[in-house]
């Protein structure tokens, strides 16, 4: 089966291509891409009407496999976090998840393995075996590996397998039982708080360890200006460090929890306005490498509770691109830079075979209209749960089609 996507604005961050043209997908792979491509006979022709055609988005951090939500958001590959009901800390669990993904032609799911057994931060997990079974990186997810000695050994050991360690940058003892950003709002609402310094401190320590062990490290979910500055300084020194943030940190600040709104309870907490602006700057200048959704469907049962008891987390797969596009529309972030953080960079970090518009690669594609205005409606989300803090928010930029292995799996017009 051959499909021709004609009249598309082809954007490929890996080759810096931004041109009007055609992409041909034969069976599962890209067979031709560029401005002057002739459509072969018998091909199904899809007129993209000058919408952007880019590699399918890669989301490095989801807590649940939510295929409908992903496809509606242009995401074709998700990286499942190890904090599942059965913790992903051994190769059989990894194999099961990879097997399920290979069976379905739909969608690529890669697991991240636990960095330590049971996410307890004590004993190294079987990194080598999990890697052979298909785990793409290793993390303790929402728990930082606190013990410096264990972290050092983890990085040394992972370095031998060239495995990426993903750390949650939050100093555990300084954060304590905090649930909000330390500042005026938390003080007024009477919520236990976490200072922004907790993030920078963890980054600083782990950068030292990365330099000591010559290993690479990735920090997930930056939330503060201090964090961005710590990464910027580390990169300048030449440390092998990368990091990510999520759209809600680019869009909201601590004011969102006013009135004890638990739908805005996330971990790390939403911080001050200056932090939000620093994160956008960090994304613009490349200090922040990737954007993740941190997609975490939670039912109203665990959200409609007093703030202290409510489970943190938001759904984000479906709204990630639209929310991120606001940084482009406001002139802060270059469109190609944004797309790179969602495609090429995560593919490179995790050694994935997607994330590029290149002949021979899998035809995992997203086609979206960058200008299209729409209003986020929580009830209409495809996610399995509706815990978004962005209900009724007007946004600009909407996914039109999502193509996995050459097949259109999401089409807004049907």
């Amino acid at each position, binding site marked *: 089966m051959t499909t021709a996507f004609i009249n598309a604005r082809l954007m490929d961050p890996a080759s810096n291509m931004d041109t009007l043209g055609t992409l041909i997908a034969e069976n599962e792979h890209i067979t031709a891409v560029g401005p002057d491509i002739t459509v072969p006979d018998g091909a199904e022709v899809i007129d993209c009407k000058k919408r952007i055609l880019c590699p399918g988005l890669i989301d490095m951090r989801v807590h649940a496999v939510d295929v409908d939500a992903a496809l509606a958001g242009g995401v074709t590959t998700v990286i499942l976090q190890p904090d599942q009901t059965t913790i992903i800390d051994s190769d059989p669990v990894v194999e099961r998840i990879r097997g399920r993904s290979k069976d379905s032609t739909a969608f690529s799911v890669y697991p991240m393995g636990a960095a330590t057994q049971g996410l307890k931060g004590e004993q190294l997990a079987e990194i080598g075996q999990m890697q052979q079974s298909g785990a793409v990186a290793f993390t303790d997810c929402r728990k930082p590996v606190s013990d410096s000695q264990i972290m050092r050994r983890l990085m040394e050991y992972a370095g031998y397998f060239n495995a990426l360690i993903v750390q949650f940058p939050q100093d555990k003892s300084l954060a304590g039982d905090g649930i909000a950003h*330390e*500042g*005026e709002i*938390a*003080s*007024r*609402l*009477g*919520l236990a*708080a976490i*200072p922004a310094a907790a993030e920078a401190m963890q980054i600083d320590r782990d950068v030292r360890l990365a330099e000591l062990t010559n290993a690479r490290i990735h920090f997930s979910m930056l939330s503060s200006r201090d964090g961005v500055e710590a990464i910027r300084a580390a990169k300048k020194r030449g440390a092998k460090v990368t990091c990510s943030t999520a759209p809600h940190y680019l869009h909201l600040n601590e004011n969102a929890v006013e*009135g*004890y709104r638990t739908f805005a309870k996330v971990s790390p907490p939403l911080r001050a306005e200056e932090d939000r602006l620093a994160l956008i700057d960090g994304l613009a200048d490349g200090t922040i490498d990737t954007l993740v959704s941190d997609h975490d469907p939670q039912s109203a*049962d665990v959200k*409609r*509770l*007093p*703030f*202290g*008891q409510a489970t943190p987390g938001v759904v984000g797969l479906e709204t990630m691109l639209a929310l991120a596009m606001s940084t482009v529309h406001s002139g802060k972030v270059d469109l190609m830079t944004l797309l790179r953080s969602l495609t090429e960079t995560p593919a490179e970090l995790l050694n994935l075979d997607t994330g590029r518009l290149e002949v021979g690669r899998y035809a995992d594609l997203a086609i979206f209209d960058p200008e299209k205005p729409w209003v986020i409606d929580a009830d209409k989300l495809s996610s399995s749960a509706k815990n978004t803090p962005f209900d009724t928010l007007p946004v600009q930029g909407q996914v039109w089609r999502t193509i996995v292995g050459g097949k259109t799996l999401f089409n807004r017009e049907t």
Partner: protein
Amino acid sequence: MSTHYTDTAPYPRADVSPPSGSLFPHKHLLGIWNMDPTSIKHLLDTAEKYVDQNRQSHKTSPICAGLTQINLFFENSTRTLMSFEIAGKRLGMDTISMSTGSSSIKKGETLLDTADTLNAMHPDALVVRHADSGAVQLLSEKMDCAVLNAGDGRSEHPTQALLDALTIRRRKGQIHGQTIVISGDIAHSRVARSNIYLLSAMGARVRLVAPPTLLPTDIERLGVEVYHRMDEGLEGADVVMMLRLQQERMQGAFLPSLREYYRFWGLTSEKLKYAKDDVLVMHPGPMNRGVEIASDIADDLDKSAIREQVEMGVAVRMACLDVLTSHLRQEKKA
């Protein structure tokens, strides 16, 4: 100072009658945070009349007869619970009290399910205390009747602030212009937060005195002055409110020891000399004698208003129940 500003109208905006025409345009009493001086004054004025009533031999005025009041306490309390019970009974309400031990919240029921259940019993006033900040507000969203916050987490304890204000107003004549010191564990105190909002709204000058570990970040943005030394903070004070120091604060390195706390932040006669001669000493209770306050001060009837605070507590809670159920009685009349 301009004579235009009085205790009852600290800001020009308070001179304007509220747009709704109601002196208390709130359905619930969740906190002082969103209350304007007119509403606060209305509650205090109403309470004043109950102070007199409570001092007579016949203390009940059954204006709320036939109404049901439920006291739901998810956190242990003796004085606040009893105060609310007495207040309800003196207004002729049918009062039922429930504490954590006997409620199904321990059986895993969520707060909103509890609210649903209670709502189906058609109470007319629900008094709630909960260990989580914001819990009472959440519960109020599901209730048809008036909800009164009897303390939620570290957030607010509005009736305590109101009874403190009533005590100050009766002793000092007015709240406006007074220099009021709040000292102790501000960080974990809902009493402190409610008092900060109320006293600043009524035009008092509020100072906080505490060791840095017991002060929340950016608290000065609420319009208070922050001190760490008692002598500096107490200088020229009209009123000193001491807060209870929870013994468990010794864990988690908030403080080294009770002995050291008493030495630097306990209220003693020597430290009190820095305040004005006619200083009023207050404490929301229960007191830790020899920790945050010396016995001789607590028992000095000229200076200490601690017993009076308890008395005002009943009157203030009667006023709150009265005002929040007044629409029910108007319906009855019509």
